[in-house]
């Protein structure tokens, strides 16, 4: 990697980002499929009351084969894919010493973090 030119490093980052997005998508779809199959097997109607999202109990719920837990995990994987892509691109730009793009990558992640923080705090 150290001998690679900036262009080839960016190109590698694009390829890696692409694979990351595709991999995350398939993982997300797989988790969602498991969740939906469990949901249907348990006779749960999609129009029933929305289950509560609780990160603290997610692991135990997955082990208990709770359909909602697999669906939540799938949704988290969906959302993580684009965030992972930005992180990969940011790292590649840092390797190129392209600090403007590194700053933009960090700023994008900050906007998302502020959104989560504001929603948790109930200010939006």
């Amino acid at each position, binding site marked *: 990697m150290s001998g690679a030119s900036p262009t080839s490093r960016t190109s590698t980052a694009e390829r890696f980002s692409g694979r990351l997005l*595709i991999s995350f998508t398939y993982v997300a779809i797989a988790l969602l499929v498991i969740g939906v199959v469990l949901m249907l097997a348990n006779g749960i109607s*999609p129009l029933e009351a929305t289950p509560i999202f609780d990160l603290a109990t997610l692991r135990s719920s997955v082990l208990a084969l709770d359909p909602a837990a697999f669906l939540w995990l799938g*949704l988290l994987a*969906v959302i993580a894919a684009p965030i992972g892509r*930005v992180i990969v691109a940011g790292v590649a730009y840092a390797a190129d010493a392209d600090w403007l793009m590194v700053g933009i990558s960090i700023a*994008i992640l900050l*906007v998302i973090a502020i959104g989560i923080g*504001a929603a948790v705090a109930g200010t939006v």
Partner: protein
Amino acid sequence: MLVGLLLLGGGALAGAFGALLGLGGGILIVPLLTLGFGLPLREAAGVSLISVIVTSSAAAGVYLERHVVNLRLGMTLELFTATGAFIGGSIAFLLDDRVLSVLFGALLLYSAVTMARAKTEVGLEEGITPDTDDETDTHVRPPAATDPDRLSGPDYRVRNLPLGLVGSTFAGIVSALFGIGGGIVKVPLMHLAMGVPLRVATATSNMMIGITATASAVIYLTRGGIDPYVAGPTAIGVFLGATAGSRLAHRVDGRYLRLLFVAVLLYTASQMLLRGLG
């Protein structure tokens, strides 16, 4: 069980229809969930955002591997679409469902008019997995990192960047409010106003949708605006439908499909307007 299968099938239809016409499924998912399943528009928008991220991630992954995306331009504009999505996601929880319905109806009308006037030139849009047999994308050279104008590509020069930044913020707001990808704003903005070739604009818009929708989806998710029981089957359906639709796109006569789609858009627009005003 029946409702779950209907969501799966409806999502697949929306995804396939969208892919055949070069659109993401978002513009069809929201009416499907609100008019078909009686969900509040805000909840439908949250579910739609998830579906849009799934399909755009799959498509953007392929575009990135083929180096069709202008990553530098896309990430620069993404900062503004994400900011717009944060604003839109915040506004969405303040607006009445009926107001959102009227606004969405207006958006559908605009889409119908745009689609009716569109020429066959329009390429792949957001949320569509590109047909992997189509190798034409590889002929587009990637933007050079050493280009003096850092956001431009080797064969084109990006212009009107300030307009692009403002337009991207608007696209983010629209995306967050209605649960759509926002390509209907971003592609014309990049192609017509900023001078980006259509195929690059389409691929770059597609990649941007992931972060744009994520910025508002995290707000919807944190505020309990996404129901996993509805989002799961719908997202799987849209993903399968979009994948199948993109592979069938070359074998279907787009003219009749486009007319049918305009009719569907006009009908759903009228229903959304009635829902909001009635």
